[in-house]
């Protein structure tokens, strides 16, 4: 469908984005906020943003996504949104009774220049925040960054507002899992538990956006990091920040605010990144890696060895979020695959490009930020004809036009399920990825094989 609109030769676009490869900050902030137990995300702006963000998350997770809006009207945009937010805070605690409200701004409230910190203080002073309840906020102007930075900002605000150091260490390790699926957060917790490491994982959307069917509608499903844990994160031994863009800002703040040392790591996608994660956990917590984890690792290496000939020289083009891309690229190159192009709408800066190139070399086309959109990605796919495409649901148009298998990874995935329940991080995640990739490659080989070489055994 898009094919007719995408010429193969590179056209210079100077002033616009065609089919964006990112979306705006507030949706990321909303998602992060859902990772706090009993939290109601609040969108400070007009109704539309909140409706869009809830729809986007609902479509991706197929779960009810709750959030409130300040319902700006013309008046608010002239006189400021203070009255709306004050009223919102009052109404939210009265009707929906969350433990905590996590407010994020929208482009509108940013341009008006509402000072959220001051408004929240005023609400507290006027007794609009019941005892024991909390309101936190983050700034997410949509004309900067992307959904990934919005996620990072909200996670950082959790630290800003909540985390404290009392001087009494808990011996726990903080893990900031990054903008990943609830299944991934779950898997990170499982690995740590398996290793006997006590952790605080935040935000943690598992059990919130992939909640079980219980026969009733729950405004606040059972999952999410409880506020007390985020508070006590200031007393942990160390912080592992998974993913530079999504997790580092919060980890850095924990370091400066509460003197919790941080270890930046890539998202544990694929073998090496998972090794690094497990190893860091081991060292930081002073534990040894249990046999059970070694078995999981061994199984990944086993499959990889069994099937390595199918990966040799296969090419892939990737579009998605920077933290994912960095780890994925590493995994794919470890599999002996070649990367043709890597595109992300999120501004990843020179560090992103450097991290990708460290694995791929100079042949690969890498672009992030302004001008990096799906239109560009499509052109690159046309020119370099990869064997596989990795991307979110929007990449399906390109996959169809170019007849190239698509491995769905990232946000949003509207048209398939599984991402909510099966992780791509850790060794189990690596196995799942291997399975997805192999199935795609071998299905293609079967489909294209001439009659005489279409065989039972591969």
């Amino acid at each position, binding site marked *: 469908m898009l094919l007719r609109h995408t010429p193969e030769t590179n056209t210079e676009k100077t*002033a616009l984005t065609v089919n964006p490869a990112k*979306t705006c900050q507030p949706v990321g902030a909303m998602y992060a906020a859902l990772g706090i137990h009993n939290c109601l995300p609040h969108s400070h702006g007009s*109704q539309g943003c909140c409706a869009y963000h809830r729809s986007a998350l609902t479509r991706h997770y197929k779960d009810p996504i709750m*959030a409130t*809006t300040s319902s*700006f*009207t013309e008046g608010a945009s002239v006189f400021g949104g203070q009255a709306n*937010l004050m009223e919102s805070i009052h109404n939210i605690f009265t009707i929906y009774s969350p433990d905590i409200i996590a407010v994020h701004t929208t482009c509108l409230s940013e341009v008006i220049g509402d000072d959220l910190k001051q408004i929240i203080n005023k609400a507290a002073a006027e007794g609009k925040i019941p005892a024991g309840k909390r309101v936190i906020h983050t700034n997410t102007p949509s004309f900067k960054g992307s959904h990934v930075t919005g996620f990072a900002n909200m996670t950082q605000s959790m630290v800003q507002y909540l985390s404290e150091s009392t001087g009494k260490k808990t011996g726990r390790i903080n893990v900031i899992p990054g903008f990943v699926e609830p299944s991934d957060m779950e898997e990170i917790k499982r690995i740590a538990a398996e290793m006997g490491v006590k952790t605080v994982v935040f935000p943690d959307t598992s059990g919130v956006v992939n909640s079980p*069917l219980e*026969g009733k509608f729950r405004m606040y499903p059972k999952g999410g990091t409880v506020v007390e844990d985020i508070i006590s994160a200031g007393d942990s031994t160390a912080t592992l920040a998974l993913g530079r863009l999504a997790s580092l800002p919060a980890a850095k703040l924990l370091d400066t605010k509460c003197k919790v040392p941080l270890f930046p790591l890539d998202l544990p996608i694929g073998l090496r990144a998972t090794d690094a994660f497990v190893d860091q956990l081991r060292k930081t917590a002073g534990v040894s890696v249990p046999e059970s984890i070694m078995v999981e690792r061994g199984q990944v290496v086993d499959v990889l060895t069994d099937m390595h000939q199918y990966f040799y020289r296969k090419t892939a083009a990737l579009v998605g979020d920077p933290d994912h891309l960095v780890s994925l690229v590493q995994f794919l190159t470890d599999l002996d695959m070649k990367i043709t192009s890597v595109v992300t709408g999120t501004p990843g800066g020179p560090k992103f490009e450097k991290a990708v190139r460290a694995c791929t070399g100079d042949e690969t086309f890498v672009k992030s930020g302004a001008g990096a959109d799906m239109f560009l990605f499509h052109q690159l796919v046309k020119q370099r004809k990869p064997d596989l495409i990795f991307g979110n649901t929007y990449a399906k148009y390109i996959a169809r036009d170019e007849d190239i298998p698509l491995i769905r990874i990232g946000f949003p995935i509207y048209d398939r399920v599984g991402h909510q329940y099966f992780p791509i991080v850790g060794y189990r995640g690596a196995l799942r990825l291997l399975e997805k990739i192999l199935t795609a490659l071998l299905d293609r080989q079967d489909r294209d094989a001439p009659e005489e070489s279409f065989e039972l055994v591969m």
Partner: protein
Amino acid sequence: MIEILKEREQQVYEKGESRFDLACEKPSLAGSVSQRACVFCGSRVVLYPIADALHLVHGPVGCAAYTWDIRGSVSSGPELHRMSFSTDLSEREVIYGGEKKLYAALTELIEAYKPRAAFVYATCIVGLIGDDVQAVCARVEAEQAIPVIPVHSEGFRGSKKDGYRAACEALFRLVGKDDETPLSPRSINILGDFNLAGETWIIKEYYRRMGVETASCITGDGRVGEIGRSHRASLNVVQCSGSMTYLAQLMKKTYHIPFKRVSYFGIEDTAEALYTVARHFKDAQVLRNTEELVASEVRRIYPEVERFRTSLEGKKAAVYVGGSFKAFSLVKALRHLGIKTVVVGSQTGNKEDYDYLGEICDPGTVIVDDTNPLELSRFMTEKDVDLLIGGVKERPIAYKMGVAFCDHNHERKIALAGFEGMVNFSREVYSSTMSPVWQFSPARIGREARTAVDADVESTKGHGAARC
């Protein structure tokens, strides 16, 4: 039990109580989990299906990203509307203004895609930073010789309804441009059908069989050229009245075209719609054609609908949709299936609409304006419904409660309009309501006995498994 806020008490009504005076058309309460959207959303959904026009969203990237190919309005030709174009404003433009970028983007896009017209949607912050979108559009229009139309859809200017109005104003700029193309004296404009899952095509085909020419579809499978000649049609047939009445009024005032409100949903309403048009032309042949059409279609679909009804009789439904007109038809269509509507509401209904709803609903029905999930789920539990009809955000809520669901909004893959639409609708309602999955839902334990005794309607048809 949840509390309904004092401020919202007037927006909920249970039929049978003494006074019926539902408060509506109020902005949502600050801090509510409103299901409503904004002005931009309203404009975007109405104009979106015009397939040979360029739709450029002037603002930060989000608004464009969220409306990228989101609606399922299909086109029989060009598909330019399915692309997502954004000026992707950054901090720089927020400070220094985005006019230059808008001009460059428009020029580049028009040169690359050669559209028949361009719509420029001004989003929230564009209004605030004070870009003169009008002036930029005028300049590009002069240079490129196609209509370049600003759509004033700054999100905060009101609710979705105000976006409809902005869309109508934009559309009106395209009306009256073509005085040449010959048009039958028996021609109409189809207003307010957006060709979800090809629905406009079904309706258009009915009119063709009646001997009525469709001058333009506004905006389902829409074309700039068709809209240009729409002022010479003899009648405007308005379906989604919430969004399109304003355009019809404009056309009446300027071009003296009368308009009729109709609905193509359900058997009676579809038939009534076609008769309304036939009667307008006072032409014996058209009337005969219409009678034949309706009779043969009803004959064709009735047995099928009846079969579904056998199993569905006695079930209860909740309806929560965007426009209230849709709610009317749904209540009637559900009645055809033996299903009682016990909760009904809309995001944007007005006083008249709710009065009418009050008339057609049974006593005890809860009528709500601009509800939120907590309220809605409470009403659903209290009234013990089997089915919810709503939009994207409502679907998982219903499922979590063990309640069947039918999408009557943007996520529709099958046509629900016209006579065949009624069969599709019946099948969808049946397949969800009677699905064996509910026996696994804790909420339904004890109720599934009812499901078990009902024979499987689909299997009685004797051909294949239509369930999936």
